[in-house]
């Protein structure tokens, strides 16, 4: 009986195993972030099918398509709040949808924690910049730019 008392601690040492293959496993995040990002991808994807196909149809096929696009055409469209809202939602949904997709790709393929971190920083900065510039243009677009 007494002789076996050393075995449990010895066995415990031997069984101090690494978590699945990764050198160290991050503490489990008890949040629904991944759930919501997964859900967002589905919903935004469905909306983007309508928004992007509609956009492509108007820009490339309807009424002579791409040949009639010029400054006046864009100005005319953005005079309507409907098309402003259309383009704004397309910008935000596509940017976050695509950005989230790239985030998961970085998570899947980056081998080192530092690579992962910096790639994501670059991604987030570019996302914020594009969203900010795009939103700024849509809201402050002035059709009467003085010719210089």
């Amino acid at each position, binding site marked *: 009986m007494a002789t076996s008392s050393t075995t449990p601690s010895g066995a415990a040492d031997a069984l101090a*195993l690494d*978590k*699945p*293959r990764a050198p160290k496993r*991050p503490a*489990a995040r008890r949040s629904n*972030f991944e*759930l919501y990002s997964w859900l967002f991808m589905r919903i935004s994807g469905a909306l983007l099918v309508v928004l992007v196909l509609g956009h492509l149809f108007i820009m490339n096929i309807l009424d002579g398509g791409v040949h009639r696009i010029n400054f006046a055409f864009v100005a005319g469209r953005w005079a309507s709040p409907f098309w402003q809202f259309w383009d704004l939602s397309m910008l935000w949904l596509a940017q976050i949808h695509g950005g989230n997709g790239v985030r998961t790709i970085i998570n*899947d393929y980056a081998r080192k924690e530092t690579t992962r971190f910096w790639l994501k920083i670059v991604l987030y900065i570019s996302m914020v910049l594009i969203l900010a510039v795009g939103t700024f243009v849509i809201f402050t677009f002035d059709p009467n730019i003085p010719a210089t």
Partner: protein
Amino acid sequence: MSTAVSDNDTSSGPQQAGPKPPPVPEGSRTVTLKIQRFNPEFDEEPRWESYDVPALSTDRLLNLLHYVKWYLDGTLAFRRSCAHGVCGSDAMQINGVNRLACKVLMKDMLAPQGKPTVITIAPIKGLPVQKDLYVDMEPFFEAFKAIKPYLITYGNEPSKERIQSPADRERFDDTTKCILCACCTTSCPVYWADGSYFGPAAIVNAHRFIFDSRDQGAEERLDILNDAEGVWRCRTTFNCTDACPRGIQVTKAIQEVKRALLFKRV
């Protein structure tokens, strides 16, 4: 759980032939097995070696591996135990897909008459190779243990057995078939790239308890699988479903766990 068939007689030199091979049976054809070899004591990198083995169309691939082991090169190491597709020891990558060597029949592998048959065999990917075809399964079982693969109940024990209707039993029937061979997990590209993902096999075994009407630990397990390394990493490539030697609809089980998380309902 499994028997490692490793070299037990190295005294007569490397590459030694074992006992004299039995006479080649009538109607057999020569098959080339191209096997990925790795000996941690000598090799820096895995290398490929080819063996010509006589095969009958009634053979399983495992018979051919035994032929190599017993008569051609006793240093070949691979796992096998029951050899009948039940224990799940001999999972390996055969012609690029994960299969159990004991369930692969030569009649499906032989090239048309007159053409040479070459079968490529490599260890399952994503787990550290220890020697030749056997890998360290411990990370795989670690993920399995992490999802609490046992009955969890609260309150008083029932005085008789825990009753379950056939319909309730049917709910998780598919995922009870898992033999933990690791074919699915080691066919998953997400697992290859990032081994901290739980992997299909762990999720299948969580599914088996989450959807069991007698079990009360569903919430705990769903919470574990809601992790950043849990079900949301699945990209539905269906490699796991394709690899499963038991025909479990693995991707479907993963999707059902996602749905349970999404709608907070089992």
